[in-house]
């Protein structure tokens, strides 16, 4: 039973630049927001960007039900995201939401969240949601170097935060997949993972080997975002599925990873 999707003009309540490639957009609704779930995403219409024809999808990074607001964590990749980074407080943005399925409740109380780069976006919302359900959250994030790390404090409110940096300037050196937590023998009821495909596949591989349940969130390129164009499909063990409808969250078993 899915919530009705809506198209709203939301107001930019905050635009926080984390560094020169990442920023947070806080969008506020005049009317009560529909219920939003971790893993869901929105489709933004980017105005005034000649090379941005289609909407742009972004995961919900945080949800503030009291203030009728939610946040997106955005990495500047091309013209569309660059334009969004210049938005000023008070400007309006046409948003379609809520889209996609969501991360599911874990089968137990010990979970590991793994995020690489901007893949951390949905994990903050997920971490808070899990914590509210008394799940014990450990969050592992990978970065290039210490200076790139952002929002550590926010994540620490959800649980323990582990870090890897490629240059070793903070936490363990190397990639997330090399982190000692995977060799520690510590068990998890589920791993939730988000990031570049290659990283997710490597984590899925570890999870499979260790027999841990694992959900990943895919970011296939999308034309519509609400299930009608069939452009975003991924092969699963029950045929091609739409990442924007049956996903973006899939269990690695469905994906055959």
């Amino acid at each position: 039973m899915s919530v009705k999707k809506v198209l709203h003009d939301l107001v930019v309540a905050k635009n926080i630049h984390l560094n020169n490639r990442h920023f947070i957009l806080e969008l506020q609704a005049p009317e009560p927001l529909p219920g939003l779930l971790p893993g869901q995403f929105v489709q933004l219409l980017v105005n005034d960007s000649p090379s941005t024809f289609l909407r742009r999808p972004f995961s919900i990074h945080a949800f503030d039900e009291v203030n009728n607001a939610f946040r997106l964590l955005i990495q500047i990749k091309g013209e569309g995201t660059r334009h969004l980074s210049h938005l000023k407080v008070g400007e309006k943005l046409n948003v379609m939401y809520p889209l996609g399925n969501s991360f599911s409740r874990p089968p137990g109380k010990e979970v590991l969240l793994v995020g690489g780069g901007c893949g951390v976006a949905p994990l903050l919302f997920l971490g808070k949601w899990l914590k509210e359900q008394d799940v014990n959250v450990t969050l592992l994030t990978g970065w290039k170097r210490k200076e790139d790390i952002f929002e550590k404090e926010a994540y620490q409110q959800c649980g323990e935060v582990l870090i890897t940096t490629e240059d070793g300037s903070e936490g363990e050196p190397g990639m997330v997949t090399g982190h000692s937590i995977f060799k520690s023998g510590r068990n998890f009821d589920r791993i939730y993972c988000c990031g570049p495909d290659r990283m997710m596949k490597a984590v899925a591989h570890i999870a499979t080997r260790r027999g841990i349940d694992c959900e990943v969130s895919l970011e296939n390129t999308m034309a519509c975002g609400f299930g009608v164009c069939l452009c975003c499909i991924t092969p699963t063990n029950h045929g091609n599925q739409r990442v924007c409808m049956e996903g973006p969250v899939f269990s690695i078993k469905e994906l055959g990873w």
Partner: protein
Amino acid sequence: MIDLTLKIGHLNLKNPVMTASGTFGYGEEYRDFLDLSRLGGIVVKAVTGSNRDGNAYPRMAETPSGMLNSVGLQNKGVDHFVKEIYPVIKDFNTNVIVNVSGSTIEEYVAVAEKINELEKVPAIELNISCPNVKHGGMAFGTIPATATEVTAAVRKVYQKDLIVKLSPNVTSIQEMAKAVVDGGADIISLINTLLGMAIDADKRKPVLSTLTGGLSGPAIKPIALRMVWQVSKAVHVPVIGMGGIMNATDAIEFILAGASAVQVGTANFIDPAVTVKIVEGIEAYCRLHKFSSVKELIGGLNS
């Protein structure tokens, strides 16, 4: 009161605005955004003889004022359509038209025969842009004789309105239009997508898994308008125009060029409620320019 209704073939349209196949699913997903009964018709996505998985991902590339797709007719086949989809969509209070596709003439005929039995489907749209497996993969719609042949074969088994949808990837669209009229088309719709390609310079790779794909969106509007104008001069059957329609002004341009009705495709992805806005915009245009019926606009270019 502005009269937006019109009749093309035996189809009674509330207004000239329909949705384009492959961009509107089976209508279901749009119900959150608009009241389907406000549309002149919806053309549901391609139905083939049996299940097709479609092409591999990636299937989409954004291009200047447009997009390429290579979905590849993904659908569960005509029997699934008849059993599972039809019962849901048959009571939409609008014309539900089925886009019929195939790889062989036999497949087209088989699908058309089964759709012919569906009481609440008043017309099919024959998508002749599909590659003909018996003809080295050249699309049915790029060779006049083949286009006539597939149209005539379907005509034999299909009793209701037969819309044939032309491919724009041809030297002479007029010739193709005449070919499908010769085959028995009641109505012509055009244009399907233009064959294009996108390349990722950094990765030095084609963006689409299939290398090439179909170009749609405003980028193709000038070509679509030209073809609609040429076809409406070349044949006497009604024409449904499409290609890059984003708003009411675009729709009116197609009607002025000679289309009786229009279809809206890619624009639905950006604004799923756009079709209703287009209906309202056409009405506003008629009011402003003092036309009492949208029929007065068809082919209404001053010179």
